[in-house]
């Protein structure tokens, strides 16, 4: 009885749209009419043959791989650092909340200005300390644009991973660490044997969450590059948006949207498999 309103709400605004997306993906519906003849798996077949979709899938996977890896590695390093006895440790930890709370669109805009080819802070910094000779076009060049966006994403979400890890580190047994140290275990060995198993669970949860978010990414890229230059930052979400809302092909857009769900599910299963293997070792 008490669950009914939630069940009803979820059904209306999530369940039904999802089922409808499944149905739409099998039709050639247009956004204007919203109904179209049944075409079977034609939309999926075409999506797999479309160079744009392939490229967007590839870009999405690269983006997720880069950002999640960087976020996990840097997040753990920062957490370990802030777990040390430091003067003002609480201030350092409190700062972590800021990137996490900053709205994504504002983050994207801020980095867009940092990368600006005429007055961007990054260009000013790098020229003044002599690392580059002249101002670069960081998000205007297809070879650097995706990485530049990844940096913005990493900046915003590393703190979350660090906070999760930091919380997990509090559960690591100090006695065990001390005992290992006295036994002469190296820092790396102590991390691998004592610390890592304790933080692996929460870290995997963080990685899964970041993967789901990474596969969905839209606002960050839309504000920074809109998918350009030369489609080098066009991820699946942008591709689906174009297909459904610029080209008005609702059916085909729905099919491509489902591909995103598929990518998400595959990546999450990979993590779970990795976690299982780790656990069984």
């Amino acid at each position, binding site marked *: *009885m*008490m*669950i009914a*309103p*939630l069940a009803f*709400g*979820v059904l209306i*605004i*999530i369940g039904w*749209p*999802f089922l*409808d*997306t499944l149905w*739409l993906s099998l039709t050639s519906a247009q956004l204007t009419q919203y109904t179209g003849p049944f075409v079977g798996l034609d939309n999926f077949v075409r999506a797999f043959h479309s160079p744009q979709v392939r490229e967007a899938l590839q870009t999405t996977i690269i983006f997720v791989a880069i950002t999640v890896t960087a976020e996990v590695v840097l997040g753990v390093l*920062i957490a370990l*650092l802030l777990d*040390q006895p*430091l003067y003002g440790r609480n*201030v*350092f930890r409190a700062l972590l909340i*800021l*990137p*996490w*709370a*900053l*709205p994504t*669109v*504002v983050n*994207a*805009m*801020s*980095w867009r*200005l*940092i990368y600006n080819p*005429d*007055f961007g*802070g990054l260009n*000013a910094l790098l020229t*003044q300390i002599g690392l580059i000779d002249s101002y670069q076009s960081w998000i205007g060049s297809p070879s650097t644009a995706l990485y530049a966006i990844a940096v913005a994403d990493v900046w915003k979400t590393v*703190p979350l991973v660090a*906070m999760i890890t*930091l*919380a997990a580190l509090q559960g690591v047994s100090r006695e065990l660490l*001390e005992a290992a140290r006295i036994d002469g275990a190296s820092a790396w060995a102590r991390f691998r044997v004592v610390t890592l198993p304790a933080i692996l*669970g*929460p870290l995997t949860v963080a990685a899964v969450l970041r993967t*789901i*978010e990474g596969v*969905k990414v*839209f*606002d960050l890229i*839309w*504000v920074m590059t809109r998918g350009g230059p030369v489609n080098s930052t066009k991820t699946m979400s942008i591709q689906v*948006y174009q297909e*459904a809302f610029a080209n008005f092909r*609702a059916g085909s857009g*729905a099919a491509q*949207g*489902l591909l995103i769900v598929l990518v998400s599910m595959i990546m*999450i299963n990979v993590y779970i498999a990795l976690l299982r293997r780790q656990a069984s070792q």
Partner: protein
Amino acid sequence: MKQPLYLRILLHLAAILVAIVTLAPIVWLLLVSISTTEHLTTLPFEWIPDHLDLSNYRQLLSLADNSRGDLFLGALQNTMIVAFGATAVSLCVSVPAAWAFSRIRGRHASLLYVVVATYMLPPVALIVPLFALLNAFDLLNTKLGLVLVDCSIVMPFMTWLLKSNFDNLPHEIEEAAFVDGAGMLAVLRKVTLPMAKPALATAILFAILLLWDEFFYAFILTNDNRSQTLTVAIANLASGRVSDYGLLSAAGLLTALPPLIIGVLLQRALVSGLAQGGVKG
């Protein structure tokens, strides 16, 4: 256990570097927002502006008709209405459901997982039917429509968060109330909720934070200042409509201010919540 001095210095330097990188994009935004365009585009770049230019903030906070302030404050109002509205609706739905999931074990557990799993669905996989749904009920470009759709983001997450909090509340007092013959709703209202006040506050703040950040649905489902939210207004400005970067940065910072404050308020709840693994990024 005492660390050698050189290591202590190194660790502090590393922590300071992390702090600088964490603050840099926000400071950059502040810097751009108080500089004139001439100052920004004069090379080599001077990091400290020679005078404080607050005209951007003044413009944004002016109430004159058709001014930038009109646009900005209108979007702010829309964001607030949508965020508070969707939070209120979700709260009404999630509280009883979370309580039921927490107290009535077993039978509906799988339903809870279905609800939580909806988080995996990217908005692009739902957007076409949602768009058609709102179009059919003439709710496109309305705040009401956006409130309803945004509930799809908040409801599952809120139910999950509240459920794990309810799990930790003592059951004895509730049971005593039941023995006294109180109905379910009465127990929930008079006994459980007063105990769960901190959890409710946390859930509300999280929900507002999520909704403040929301971009994709607002971007597709609204198209003018009657219902456009801050994130969409900023994204539109940032992607080419305006070359006035100072104004843009000021708007970004003002938009970020409420979430940043909420973030600081949430610090403690977030860290303890993270320890339980019950928070999404």
